[in-house]
C-alpha cells in the first residue's frame, strides 16, 4: 500500500470510529433499495419524489410482507432509517416548502450492485477484460517510450497504470471472488441434492461438477495465455521506466505485475483444488451412491455401531515386527561411584644399592681386631683415620656394634671416656684376646 493511501485509510478508520458509523439494515430495507434501483433504471430517474418512494415501498411490502397494515407509517420509518445511514439523501434543498426529492447515495448503489450484479468470471468476461487490459497496456507502453519529462511520465504512464489498468485487474479479481462463491454454492448444492434425492441426484450432481470443471479449465487456459502477454508488456514498461530513472512509474508497474501474478496464481490453485474435489465427488457418486441406491448401507452401519458395545468385534490387521538394524558398538560410559581415593597403605620397600663403604668398614674393623687391639678406642684409632671425616661420627656406631658382636667386649663398672679421631668421645670397652669371629 502506498504511504499516502495508508494515511487516508487511517484517517477514514479514525473518523468512522469517532462518529460511531454503522449499518443496520433489515431485509425489507434491502428489498426497498433494490426496488428503488430497479425503478430508477426502468424510468431513467436520477432522483425520486417522495410519493414515488412511498409507492415503491408499498410494492415491496406487497411482494415480501404479508402484514400490509400501517404502510405509510412504516415507509416513513424506513425512509428515515435509510437517510440516517446515508443510503438516501434529500437533494432538492427546499426544506419545509414542499415534499422532497431523494436520491440513492453511492453507498446504497454499492450495496444494491453487490446483490444484483452477476459478477462471476466467465470465459467471455475474462477474455474481454484481458484483451482490454492488453490494449490499455499497449497504449501505456507507447506513451512510456515517448515520455520525456517526469510530468509526461506521471500523466501518461503512472496515472493509466494506477487507474485504468489497476481497475481492469481489480475487475478480474472481483469476478474471481464471484466464481469462488459460485463454486462454494455448487458444493453446497451437490450436498443438498444428494441429501434430498440421493440416487436420483447423481446425474444432476455430475452435470454441476462438469460445468464448473469446464469453466475453470477454460478460465485457466485464458489466464495462462493472456497473463503471459500482459506480463511481457509490463516488463517492457518497467524497463523503460528504469532506464528513464522514473521510480514512481517503476513501482506502479511492479504493483500491476504483482496483481497479474496473483490473478494467474488464482487460476492454478482453484483448478487444482477443484480437481481434488471433483475426483472425490466423482468417486463418492460411483462407489457410494450408485452402489447403494436406497441408502441402506448407512442405516445398517448405524445399527451396527449402535449395537457394537453389546456384540463387539475387531478388525485384524498385519503387524510385522520391525526389522532390527544392528547398531555400532558404543561403550557406555558408566559414572564411577563416589569413593575416597585408594591409598596403598603398605609403603613399598625402597631399593637401596649395596653399601660398599659398609663392607669396607667391616673389613677394616676385622683387620684391626686381628692385629690384636685390646680396647674399642684402639680399634677406632686405627679405623677412623681411614674414613672420610664427614662420615666418622656415623661410623663410630657401626664399628662399636661390630666390635660388640665379634670381639665379646667387656666394660668395667666405671667406663672411661676416651677421645678418638673425629672429635668424638666414646666409652671405652675392653677387648679380650678371644674373638668371636673367624
Amino acid at each position: 500500500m502506498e504511504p499516502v493511501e495508508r494515511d487516508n485509510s487511517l484517517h477514514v478508520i479514525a473518523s468512522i470510529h469517532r462518529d460511531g458509523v454503522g449499518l443496520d439494515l433489515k431485509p425489507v430495507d434491502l428489498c426497498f433499495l433494490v426496488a428503488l434501483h430497479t425503478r430508477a433504471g426502468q424510468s431513467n430517474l436520477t432522483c425520486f419524489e417522495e410519493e414515488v418512494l412511498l409507492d415503491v415501498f408499498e410494492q415491496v411490502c406487497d411482494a415480501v410482507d404479508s402484514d400490509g397494515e400501517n404502510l405509510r407509517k412504516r415507509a416513513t420509518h424506513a425512509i428515515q432509517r435509510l437517510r440516517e445511514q446515508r443510503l438516501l439523501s434529500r437533494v432538492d434543498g427546499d426544506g419545509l416548502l414542499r415534499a422532497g426529492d431523494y436520491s440513492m447515495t453511492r453507498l446504497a448503489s454499492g450495496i444494491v450492485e453487490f446483490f444484483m450484479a452477476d459478477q462471476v468470471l466467465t470465459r467471455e468476461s475474462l477474455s474481454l477484460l484481458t484483451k482490454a487490459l492488453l490494449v490499455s497496456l499497449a497504449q501505456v507502453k507507447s506513451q512510456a517510450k515517448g515520455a520525456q519529462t517526469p510530468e509526461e511520465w506521471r500523466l501518461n504512464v503512472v496515472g493509466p497504470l494506477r487507474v485504468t489498468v489497476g481497475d481492469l485487474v481489480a475487475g478480474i479479481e472481483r469476478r474471481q471472488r464471484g466464481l469462488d462463491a459460485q463454486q462454494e454454492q455448487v458444493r453446497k448444492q451437490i450436498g443438498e441434492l444428494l441429501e434430498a434425492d440421493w440416487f436420483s441426484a447423481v446425474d444432476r450432481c455430475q452435470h454441476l461438477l462438469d460445468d464448473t470443471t469446464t469453466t475453470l479449465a477454460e478460465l485457466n487456459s485464458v489466464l495462462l495465455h493472456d497473463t503471459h502477454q500482459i506480463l511481457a508488456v509490463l516488463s517492457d514498461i518497467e524497463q523503460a521506466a528504469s532506464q528513464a530513472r522514473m521510480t514512481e512509474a517503476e513501482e506502479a508497474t511492479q504493483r500491476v505485475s504483482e496483481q497479474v501474478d496473483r490473478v494467474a496464481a488464482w487460476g492454478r490453485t482453484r483448478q487444482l483444488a477443484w480437481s481434488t474435489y471433483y475426483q472425490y465427488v466423482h468417486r463418492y457418486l460411483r462407489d457410494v451412491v450408485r452402489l447403494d441406491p436406497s441408502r441402506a448401507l448407512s442405516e445398517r452401519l448405524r445399527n451396527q455401531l449402535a449395537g457394537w458395545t453389546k456384540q463387539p468385534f475387531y478388525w485384524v490387521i498385519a503387524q510385522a515386527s520391525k526389522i532390527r538394524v544392528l547398531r555400532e558398538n558404543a561403550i557406555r560410559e558408566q559414572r564411577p561411584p563416589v569413593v575416597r581415593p585408594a591409598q596403598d597403605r603398605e609403603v613399598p620397600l625402597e631399593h637401596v644399592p649395596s653399601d660398599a663403604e659398609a663392607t669396607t668398614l667391616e673389613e677394616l674393623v676385622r683387620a684391626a681386631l686381628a692385629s690384636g687391639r685390646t680396647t674399642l678406642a684402639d680399634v677406632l684409632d686405627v679405623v677412623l683415620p681411614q674414613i672420610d671425616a664427614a662420615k666418622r661420627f656415623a661410623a663410630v656406631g657401626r664399628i662399636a656394634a661390630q666390635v660388640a658382636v665379634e670381639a665379646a667386649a667387656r666394660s668395667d663398672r666405671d667406663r672411661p671416656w676416651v677421645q678418638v679421631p673425629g672429635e668424638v668421645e666414646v666409652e671405652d670397652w675392653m677387648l679380650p684376646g678371644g674373638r668371636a669371629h673367624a
Partner: protein
Amino acid sequence: MHESAFHQLEEVVQDPLFPEVDLALRAGRHIDRDDGERYAFVLDAQSLLETFYRRYGCELVHASDGFFYLLPVGDQMGRRHLTAGEMLVGQTLALVYLEPTTVQAGGITQQSVVVARLASLVGERELIQALNPRRRKYDERIAQETVRMEIAKALRGLESVGFIDLDEGEQVRLRLGLLRFAEAVRGLSDPAEALSRLIAEGKAVAEAAGDENEGGEEAGA
C-alpha cells in the same frame, strides 16, 4: 483388464517403491487410490505380490472400494486387532464418510463432529463403559476426559494404518479404507451371518485378546 507392467517377482522387488509399500503393508496400512503411485504399484504387481505374501501366510486383500491391505491368515507374520476405541471411531467415521453433508466439505470432517456423532449413536454411558472397561465406578468428569483422550488416541491409531489423515487443527480427512468398517453390513445378508463369515475368514475377531484398549496381538513371528 490392463496388462501388468511386471512379469517377474524380481522386477517387483527391484522397483524403488517396493520397500515402502512392503513395509507399509506389513505394518497394517491400508493403501487406497489417494496414495497415488503406491496404489498403482500394488495394482500393477497385484498377482505377483499375492503369491509373494502367501508364502508369509498372508493374503493381499483388494477391497472392491479401491484399497489394499495385508491380512495375516497364518502364524508366520505378526498381527493385531484394532482397539475398542479404534473400532468405535472407525465405524463413526465410515458413517460420516457416507453422509452427503461430507461431500460438501470434500471428505473432511472435524474431530468434534466425530465425538458428537459417536456419543449420540452409542450413548454416553455405553461409550464411557466401552472405553473405560476396568472401571465400575467413575467420576463423570474424569470419565469424559478419558473418553476424549481415548478417541484422540484412536484417531492417531487409525491414521497410522491409513484409514484417515489428520490435518492441522482438528480436521480429519476421510479415506477410502474406512469403508472396511462397513464390510459386515454390505449386501443383503444378515449382518450377524456376515460377521461370522468374516471371523471365519480371519478378517475379524469377536473377542479382544489381552487388553481391550491396547489392541491385543494375535500371533506373531
